[in-house]
């Protein structure tokens, strides 16, 4: 009967025979793959390393993917101490748990991750600064490396890159001192009551005696209590985008927010040596105090001075780097999720880059307005 059936079928051509065999091979592979996936044969344990061929494949895929996505990125000057100081402290608060303190043995818990987070001291030998930037901003799938905790804050990401480059150039000594700034007890909380988190704030923002460690970090001294509390609340709720402050403000209680805000509101003006600015302070003064009607730009002082000081940031004495950074965020359409940010965004969009520098130059040179009854 089979003979009779095969007699009825037309003979297959060579190409057709090839096709049939191919279909059989693919079918077998699909079934074998299904069995492999569903049977649980693959050992997912982190304690068992990949096959060396798997490791090789994963690394090639990773590095090609990174390289393909970094062609449009251009690094700013990374030897800027403002970037390095900020980056070092953010590394301490956000990255060191996994990547460890450079120069010391790795945390034994983290050492059992697969892949284990690398010691970043050597990273610049493998990746360019632009590639490091991309990795830090976007994270890496399947490795445990998270993306930056705020979107579109590339300006902050560069501080982390600058720190890693500095670590590679100059070794871990400087970082060891920075890492020791926060006494471990302050992490526990209760010692200083609601002001316990202050130890961390001070390491970047300074206090009544020390200025901020970097021009990228605003001085908080003499800002109004309600403005500071609102800023912390917005960082805590991820309404105001900042990867650095998202980490710092995470988990603060309402009482802590109030205590920290009151503390800084009462501090005197402590001025560090801020870097010179490119803007024209005289032109900036005109915009700050009068605005300019042709550009539909109202005066900054209309909201940031006088009665507005109770609710809004006081700009006098803030570093030009910080002011230009924030205005450029708005100008690029960011930081507009909060009520106050939504007001600033359309106004900042009407300023040119030069006008932003001018305004920043004016305010950096002004003395902090110390007023009674804030």
């Amino acid at each position: 009967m089979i003979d009779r059936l095969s007699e009825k079928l037309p003979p297959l051509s060579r190409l057709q025979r090839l096709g049939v065999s191919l279909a059989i091979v693919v079918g077998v592979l699909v079934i074998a793959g299904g069995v492999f996936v569903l049977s649980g044969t693959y050992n997912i344990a982190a304690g068992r390393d990949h096959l060396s061929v798997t490791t090789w494949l994963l690394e090639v895929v990773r590095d090609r993917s990174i390289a393909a996505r970094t062609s449009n990125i251009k690094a700013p000057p990374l030897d800027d101490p403002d970037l390095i100081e900020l980056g070092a402290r953010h590394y301490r608060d956000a990255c060191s748990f996994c990547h460890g303190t450079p120069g010391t043995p790795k945390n034994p818990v983290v050492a059992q991750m697969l892949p284990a987070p690398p010691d970043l001291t050597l990273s610049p030998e493998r990746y360019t600064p632009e590639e490091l930037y991309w990795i830090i901003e976007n994270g890496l799938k399947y490795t445990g490396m998270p993306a930056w905790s705020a979107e579109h804050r590339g300006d902050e990401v560069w501080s982390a890159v600058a720190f890693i480059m500095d670590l590679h150039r100059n070794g871990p000594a400087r970082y060891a001192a920075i890492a020791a700034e926060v006494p471990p007890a302050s992490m526990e909380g209760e010692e200083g009551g609601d002001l316990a988190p202050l130890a961390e704030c001070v390491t970047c923002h300074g206090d009544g005696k020390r200025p901020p460690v970097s021009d990228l970090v605003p001085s908080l001294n003499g800002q109004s209590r309600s403005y500071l509390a609102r800023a912390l609340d917005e960082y805590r709720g991820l309404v105001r985008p900042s990867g650095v402050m998202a980490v710092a403000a995470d988990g603060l209680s309402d009482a802590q927010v109030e205590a920290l805000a009151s503390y800084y509101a009462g501090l005197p003006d402590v001025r560090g040596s801020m870097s010179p600015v490119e803007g024209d302070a005289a032109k900036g003064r005109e915009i700050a105090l009068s605005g300019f009607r042709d550009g539909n730009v109202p005066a900054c002082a209309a909201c940031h001075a006088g009665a507005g000081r109770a609710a809004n940031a006081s700009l006098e004495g803030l570093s030009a780097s910080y002011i230009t950074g924030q205005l450029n965020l708005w100008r690029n359409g960011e930081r507009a999720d909060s009520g106050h940010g939504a007001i600033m965004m359309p106004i900042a969009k009407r300023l040119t880059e030069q006008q932003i520098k001018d305004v920043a130059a004016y305010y950096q040179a002004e003395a902090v307005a110390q007023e009674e009854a804030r």
Partner: protein
Amino acid sequence: MMHRLARLLWLASGALALTACAGEQSAFTPKGIEAERIDTLFWVMTIAGGVIFAVVAGLTLAAMLGGPRLRAKIASEKLVIGAGILFPVVSLTALLFWGFMLMRAGEATEPSAIRVSISGERWWWRVTYEDEAGRTVDTANELHLPVGQPVTLTLTSPDVIHSFWVPQLAGKLDMIPGRENILTLTATQPGISRGQCAEYCGGAHALMSFYVVAQEPDEFRRWLDAEAGAARPPEGAEALEGQRLFAAHGCGACHAVRGTEALGTIGPDLTHVGSRHSLAAAALPNRTEDFARWIRDSDHIKPENLMPPYRIFSEEELAALAAYLEGLR
């Protein structure tokens, strides 16, 4: 006579769609001298054009269906020269010169005693009156006119081209940056008309309108004197709180409320905003709750407008601001 005929034709043609054009923004219900001339011109042209069309259509039908004698007549050289060359030349020339005369083409206009400068802003109208005594009065988004007196408008714009059009009063005239265009309006009867920007000028173009209030001359004088005065102080605790919020949140950086510290000139003058017939260049009616809506959601109500949205206020604060602004009459 012309109008009765026009109305008859209108009804007869059963043009229901046209009824949408009636009302405060309709060129078919003119309330100004220039608009009346335009209306007359429109109907003369429409009716004459209709009659000519009917005759041509009749001749075409006759040429197709008529007997040999009729068709021979239609094919005659006399008819071709008479109706095809002479008639158009004569009638179009007559229409052209009559149009010139009717619309007073090239007529030098004497500047009126009271002059008004209107600047098309993005996307509202900055209005400044100057009276015989040289007194200037700043206001916005509403134009008041004395009935029976020609008023010279100087139209301009700081940045983009707009077009000023109040169909019930006159034809449209562009507002061009760096140029002053002069338009003279003469309202013939008291009442409210609506105007509209008639040149695409950006995102909020469709929401750039305004009201024109034509008043008896005495009434107009009283209005102008009131408009020239400082703002009324707020009455009641809520309005007082609103005034405090207005000052504390920097509203005065863009808006003027004369008689207070608010002297901004970027946005519309709000000294008597409560007395106007609309808000935000006729984007909203002028009700207390609309002030609150506008302050909080201006970017949604009128996308791309230049006022930032103020979503920082509580409901109570918005109500207080609205009460204060509504009280500025």
